[in-house]
């Protein structure tokens, strides 16, 4: 019995510290500014423990039963704390209040544990032994927790699952006591039922941690999620915060309505204005209709073919009133033909009667994995040749030359290796950063000096400046992106992982 209680000290000490670490990590993660978050969480937690210790004196009878109840409660609240905080991060008006409230509750409960245990054990040990043993186990548990947390729990289990797991440990202490104690406990059956129920809740939580995580994931977006859909190809999420509408594909930001005009004007006009009366246009990707909106500003355009893999994208952007306003209903243009197909396969199997496009816009997600990387390869650019005439121009969005300099120049160099002349440029799009594009052509390209009226970002001066690169983003030699050796994917991964923490 004594030994059992001392083991409980170890377990509850570990659990107690883990909850504190989880709350601190979570707060600094969700709210940023880790020094402030950690110190206020620790402060609050310790202060709440103080309240708990003080309150423990108010309990006089049935200490053991009381201790069991506390364990069940700590297990329930502490165990589910990470899940609750993650899930409610974006749903409650004052997340901070919720955070400190939960931390305080856990702190109070944990604060009660040790004094009550000391009193339970007081008749079984001499005072000096008692204090020495209990605190020895307490501190060992703390050390154990502090090592376990960064080395095992965060990297391998994640916060949500860890917190459920330690909740389960707390309840196990309660159950252990309930079943191993010989002396009669009032309401033993009720205690057992309560512990059982909490155990089931925590176990279910533990098992479903990944589901909870993915639910919580939508909360990682700035603003409220107003649309979310998993298609066979990707997860589409649209958020809104005041007037800012954002599109995320697989959690990667695709545009912010605040500054997308910069991105899309820079993508479209340097090519379109350089052509004489472009008629036949191809867009690859770009199912949001925003590049198309810019293209339709040229009256010479007769046909636009838009090839986007995911029908859900083109459907969404041609049906939602809010998004139709954003793309000025471009997807309903009679000049448009939408083809929902894989661009590589579509180009490859076009057959003998290949159309020639005057301008091609490649507005694909960044080359972050080997699947999308195929559309940045020499093989794909080789296919582009087959649908381009001597005067045709193609432009490729090519990630940020500032953050991912090698990746950007790898796209440029791959186009060159595929037999194109290239004209790289970049524009500042605040939601993304300093963003890069590459124009591919068969003849030398000259930056146009005249643009359609009414553009907000591009004019002759801006356009000219876009084509010069400061030294920190200037050209470098890179490997070539080939299907059998996707160098770009490694560059991209290496460069962005240094930069992004998400």
């Amino acid at each position, binding site marked *: 019995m004594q030994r059992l209680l001392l083991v409980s000290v170890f377990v509850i000490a570990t659990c107690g510290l883990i909850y504190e670490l989880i709350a601190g990590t979570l707060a600094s993660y969700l709210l940023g500014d880790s020094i402030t978050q950690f110190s206020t969480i620790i402060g609050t937690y310790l202060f709440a423990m103080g309240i708990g210790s003080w309150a423990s004196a108010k309990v006089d009878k049935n200490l053991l039963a009381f201790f069991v109840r506390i364990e069940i409660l700590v297990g329930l609240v502490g165990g589910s704390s990470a899940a609750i905080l993650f899930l409610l991060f974006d749903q409650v008006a004052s997340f901070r209040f919720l955070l400190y409230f939960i931390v305080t509750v856990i702190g109070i409960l944990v604060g009660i544990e040790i004094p009550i245990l000391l009193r339970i054990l007081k008749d079984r040990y001499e005072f000096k032994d008692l204090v020495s043993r209990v605190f020895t186990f307490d501190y060992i548990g703390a050390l154990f927790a502090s090592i376990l947390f960064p080395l095992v729990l*965060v990297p*391998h*289990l994640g916060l949500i*699952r860890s917190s459920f797991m330690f909740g389960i440990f707390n309840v196990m202490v309660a159950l252990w006591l309930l079943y191993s104690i010989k002396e009669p406990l009032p309401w033993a059956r009720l205690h057992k039922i309560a512990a059982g129920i909490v155990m089931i809740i925590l176990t279910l939580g533990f098992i*479903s941690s990944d589901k909870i995580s993915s639910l919580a994931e939508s909360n990682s977006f700035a603003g409220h999620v107003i649309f979310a859909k998993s298609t066979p190809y990707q997860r589409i999420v649209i958020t809104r915060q005041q007037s800012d509408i954002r599109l995320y594909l697989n959690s990667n930001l695709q545009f912010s309505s605040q500054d997308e005009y910069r991105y899309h004007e820079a993508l479209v006009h340097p090519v379109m204005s350089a052509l004489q009366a472009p008629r036949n246009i191809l867009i690859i990707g770009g199912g949001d209709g925003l590049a198309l909106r810019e293209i339709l500003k040229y009256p010479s355009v007769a046909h636009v073919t838009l090839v986007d893999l995911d029908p859900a994208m083109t459907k969404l952007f041609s049906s939602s009133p809010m998004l139709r306003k954003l793309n000025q209903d471009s997807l309903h243009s009679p000049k448009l033909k939408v083809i929902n197909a894989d661009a590589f396969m579509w180009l490859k199997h076009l057959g003998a009667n290949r159309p020639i496009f005057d301008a091609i816009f490649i507005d694909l997600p960044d080359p972050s994995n080997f699947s999308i990387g195929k559309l940045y390869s020499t093989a794909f650019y080789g296919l582009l040749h087959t649908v381009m005439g001597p005067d045709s121009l193609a432009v490729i969005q090519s990630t940020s030359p500032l953050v991912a300099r090698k990746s950007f120049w790898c796209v440029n160099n791959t186009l060159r290796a595929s037999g194109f002349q290239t004209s790289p440029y970049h524009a500042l799009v605040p939601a993304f950063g300093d963003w890069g594009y590459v124009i591919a052509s068969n003849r030398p390209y000259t930056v146009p000096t005249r643009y359609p009226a009414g553009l907000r970002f591009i004019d002759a001066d801006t356009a000219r400046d876009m084509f010069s690169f400061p030294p920190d983003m200037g050209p470098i030699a890179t490997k070539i992106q080939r299907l059998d050796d996707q160098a770009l994917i490694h560059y991209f991964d290496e460069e962005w992982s240094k930069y992004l923490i998400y």
Partner: protein
Amino acid sequence: MKPTRRQLLYGSGSAAIGMAAISPFVWDAIKPQKPIPGGIVGANSARGHRLRDGAFPAPIDSGKHDVIIVGSGIAGLSAAYHLDKAGIRDIRVLELEDHAGGNAHSGKNDVSTYPWGAHYVPLLSSESGHIKDLFRDFGIITGEADGLPVYNEDYILNDPDERLFLDGRWQEGLLPTLGVSAEDQAQYKRFLAQMESFKVKRGDDGRRWFAIPIDESSTDTDARALDRLTMKDWMLAAGYTSEPLHGFVNYGCRDDFGVRHDEISAYAGIHYFAGRDGKAANTKPDSVITWPEGNGFLAHKLAEPMAGRILPNALVYNINDTGAGVVVDYWDGQVSRRLTARAVVIATPRFIAGRLVPPLKSPDFTYAPWVVANLTLNRLPGGAGADLAWDNVIKDSPALGYVVATHQVPQMQPLRTVITYYWPLTHLSPAEARKEAIARTYEDWQKLFLSELYRVHPELVGHVAHMDVWLWGHAMIRPMPGFIWGEAREGALKQAPPIFTAHSDMSGISIFEEAYTHGLKASQAVKAFLA
């Protein structure tokens, strides 16, 4: 490194502790599972065994041809292809199965074509110039640049080529990198460097120590001495003690030969790493050539011009040189028939050749049994750590892992695919393993493969639409110590007109180049004999 949001939320995924691994799929895992449709297909062992056990009825009719080829594996098809090219057109190829191809057979469903056995060929080695013509013929080599062949980009293996599953995560490449010691790393480096040096090592006769085809290798006694010990013993003697390195080499030996590294000849083991010295103008030297249907592509191309002259479902049970032509009797499932020819090429494995022509018998030819399963999936396999690759290897698994049929399709994200699971049965002696395997039902195999698959890919529970299993009882010749440079094989290389032999097992290593070369050589010998 800062933890990413995903890591913080989910952990790294090695939460394989207890239920955690299946957590998001608990319902999928516990809900009653519908059995997955499919069955044991192929390799007509019942008919094959008739050859061992049975009497056959007397032939009901007879025919006459210039050359009969027994077996339509790569060696038989190669012999036919070259005889045909040389103007000897009156040929029949008799094949026990209902299709040509042998170990290079492939299948097809509404999702993809897929291999049943052989699935790739490395870039042609410096001794394989004679195969270049074929590759040009088939559009595999499209030209030359800087003195090197240009391979068709569609067939060059796409990146990522391979990934390894260990400790609950995938990593790129097959040598374990996570959690290995500096000593391991040093041994990897030394081992790979030594293999590179073996690649270019030549004997006094100017030939490479490890050539493809193997009979182009140097006769250097130091090289041949490597054939007298096992790969594992050689490694230990050379100071390679690293456990993950041994695991990697053992994987390589099981993958290429179906033999563990503690059994296989060190010469064969090293040959796997050092034989392939091919280069191309347009891809890296260690690249390989592959197709969704694997080497079925080559088998089909070789068989195409022979259409009408390959007789399927023809089990040859008797070959007899009468002095006035060679008599070949076969059973077509209902009746026996007889063909007579001026020359015969036996392109079956040697243990079968020995049953047909007793002097060809040799107990030194032993074979590794394999099981291959093709699984049609309604979603792509996932996995944390590294993207889905062509070859997906599971560390320390009895099965090797799986190859993805749609990998060469440039489509960004196929929604469905077929994966081919390879399993060399090396846990028992070949005879015992064969016996155990034959006794298993489709349901047994399904359980074995699925538990293996779901352990690594819990997300695939409920997404396996179809599964077929193929048992290769005698899949590959086993290059045990002493076999490659021993007497049995030397004897097997001698031709005894008018009955010729051609099969990869005459090389002691079972690869396309060897089978093809034996077919080519047999065709030349037949041609000389007929003329």
